[in-house]
């Protein structure tokens, strides 16, 4: 792939002829074709989605003939999907469409994507250092229960956040001890972590709250009310009143990008994940880096869990509250190719599909299911290498033995 600096040397016309450009343009147009039929644009005829979708398919074919097979097929698929979804949307009533696709959908998308962002970034740190983390789901669940418990006994959501994150971090350290020191198989260990968290949270939830709900009025994580924006027509319902943790998740993505790719610490983390022996040779303490990353992974995943129970959930907990969100986060990380912005993009896409699924439930149960299952199908396609290949860190999942 050309770097940006090399791109400067090429004339613009050459870059436009580059199959990568046409491929990405095709993918974007394909997605756009689906959006044409829904508010705020809301085309009411088949024509526009078809025209734009066909252009996307043509660009895809062009790309395929120029050798970028996967990208080209991706654009063709996006174009066809765009035509299909666009045509489906034009067939339903305008009123229904406006009830489903409005500014509040943006807020809801972020509400759904935030735990996924925390989980995906958590997974990224662990896996970048070379420890596969299938246990994200369990760590998130620990955060969800102990977070709301902390907020209940501590009287403030800050205590809840600290207690929840500590619980997730502790579970991660136990996992780390088995995965790093005892060189246990990491998939087996991660699976164990998920069972363990399910048992621990379920047991103590029943023991502490006698099988009832967490009492009403637990201090919850507040929303950020932006005075200037909150009263405006479109932006107000969209971003004027988001939960604090949503904004934290945005910051987290930027900070983790800088840490992983622009600092010496990040270089060390990546070295441990790519070639631990070489990292050890130049004096990096591989075990320490991996322990740090796994613990951080637990803290972050649990923070996503605390948001789920004490932010999004409004101070409640139910058995197995995460309901597979840890696995969607894992999927987002893979889909985003083990990169912060990629993971964020995937998390927002998956959050969007969950939000749409929730809204569609009233109108059509089967369409709702389709959007619920989308993250898993997309990830399956991504690992199959149909649209771009996902490449994990080279030493991901391989225990390291000191010499």
């Amino acid at each position: 792939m050309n770097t940006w600096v090399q791109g400067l040397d090429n004339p613009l016309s050459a870059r436009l002829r580059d199959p990568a450009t046409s491929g990405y343009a095709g993918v974007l147009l394909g997605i756009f074709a689906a959006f044409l039929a829904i508010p705020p644009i809301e085309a009411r005829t088949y024509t526009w989605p078809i025209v734009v979708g066909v252009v996307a398919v043509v660009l895809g074919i062009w790309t395929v003939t120029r050798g970028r097979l996967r990208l080209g097929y991706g654009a063709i698929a996006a174009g066809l999907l765009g035509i299909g979804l666009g045509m489906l949307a034009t067939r339903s009533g305008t009123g229904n469409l406006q009830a489903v696709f409005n500014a509040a959908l943006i807020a809801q998308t972020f509400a759904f994507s935030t735990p996924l962002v925390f989980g995906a970034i958590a997974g990224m740190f662990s896996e970048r250092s070379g420890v596969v983390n299938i246990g994200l789901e369990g760590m998130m669940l620990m955060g969800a229960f102990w977070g709301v418990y902390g907020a209940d006994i501590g009287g403030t959501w800050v205590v809840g956040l600290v207690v929840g994150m500590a619980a997730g971090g502790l579970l991660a350290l136990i996992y780390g001890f088995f995965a790093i020191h005892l060189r246990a198989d990491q998939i087996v260990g991660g699976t164990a972590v998920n069972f363990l968290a399910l048992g621990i949270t379920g047991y103590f939830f029943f023991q502490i709250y006698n099988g009832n709900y967490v009492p009403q009025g637990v201090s919850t994580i507040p929303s950020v009310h932006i005075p200037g924006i909150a009263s405006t027509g479109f932006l107000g319902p969209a971003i004027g009143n988001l939960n604090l943790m949503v904004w934290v998740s945005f910051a987290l993505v930027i900070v983790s990008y800088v840490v992983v790719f622009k600092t010496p610490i990040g270089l060390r983390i990546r070295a441990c994940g790519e070639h631990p022996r070489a990292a050890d040779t130049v004096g990096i303490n591989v075990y320490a880096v991996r322990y740090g990353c796994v613990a951080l992974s637990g803290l972050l995943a649990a923070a996503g869990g605390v948001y789920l129970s004490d932010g999004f959930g409004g101070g409640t907990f139910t058995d197995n509250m995460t309901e597979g969100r840890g696995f969607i986060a894992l999927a987002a990380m893979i889909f985003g190719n083990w990169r912060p912005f990629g993971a964020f993009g995937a998390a927002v896409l998956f959050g969007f599909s969950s939000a749409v699924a929730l809204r569609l439930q009233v109108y059509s149960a089967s369409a709702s299911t389709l959007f619920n299952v989308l993250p898993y199908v997309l990830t399956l396609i991504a690992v199959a290498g149909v649209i771009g290949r996902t490449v994990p860190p080279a030493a991901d999942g391989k225990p390291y033995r000191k010499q």
Partner: protein
Amino acid sequence: MSEIDPHGSKPQSPEEAASSGTLVASIALKQRAGGIVVPVLTAVIAFLLGGFVVLATGHNPLLAYRDIFNGAGLNWIFHPTTDVANTSAYNLTQTLLQTTTLILTGLAVAFAFRCGMFNIGGQGQYFVGLYVANWLGYDFQGMAALPHILIAVGGATLAGALWAGIAGFLKATVGAHEVISTIMLNWIAIWMGEWLFGDGGPLQNAANKTVPISNDVATSAQLPVFWGEQQLQGLHVGFFVALAALVVFWLVLNRTTLGYEVRAVGFNPEAAAYGGINVKKNLVRAMAISGAFAGLAGALDMTGYLYHFGVSDIPANSVGFLGIAVALLGRNTAVGTGLGALLFGALLFGTTHGLSSNVIQPELAGNLTYMIQGLIVLFVGADVLILYVWNTRKKLRPRPAKAAA
């Protein structure tokens, strides 16, 4: 307990294979070193730790475990009777029902493991089997019993094989990690169930369109019950099918060319390829056979005692995931998986429906099962620890003997 033969399954010496670093090879090494001691020790430690949690929360762990033991109907052995009016006999039939399922979901994990793959997708394959068995069991109304059962069970088994085969195919062709693809396939299967049995879904009850529950399978597709009564979830003949599956598993792995190839690929894929074994073909084949076991589990549950399934039953069901603990505790051997399935079957029923005690509530005990399951899987994955303790003990033992001599 000499049936667990650690020497019976090795195309090369385990020490040699372990140097290749594959998971199967290292497990084989530990298997040889620890035998049955390590799994038993693992389970004991997990039960002890679970007992600590019970104690710390103000319950008596010994009484709680006794109640779970009785709840599982294991006290039946003290006064055996075939009369299911007797509580212990009834509880035992229910435990064996769970054991039937767990044997098969355990084998689904174990078979893939012996080929060097971790099949986390047993749950999804089980669900797919369940759906197809429900569909075929309901759709061919008025058929003779035997062909109907064969069609329903066979179709469901095939569906499970195909579902797992996707993961195997992706692994063989593009190298997609089977763990990731089976996790995704699990969730796709779960949502598929929500759609199939949900409002307006194709398998939703035809008579009552307001509840998200499937049709009952026709009486012609229901398996005969041999212990207990059909209306009260008696033990069906699928139990013997599961036992037969254990034998088939052992025979296929240890006495056929297919099994030899599967194990060779599991020990060391490079060496197997060098020896002329088609690695890709074996990956797909092993995954498909794994999925067939899980699909069969779903088929036997549907035609054996569930008869119908609903959207709300989906998240409550975790027999596929329990299969992981069963197989790992059983060291991926036939006998081990059978015993592991009995243990977890007893835990599953004994801590929930069978439990009638004021020492510990079923809700707590049910979660205790999850904890014990997690601890067992955690320790089995790292039996370096337990082996270390065991070996130190063995090293320490001869000393006084030497001193005496």
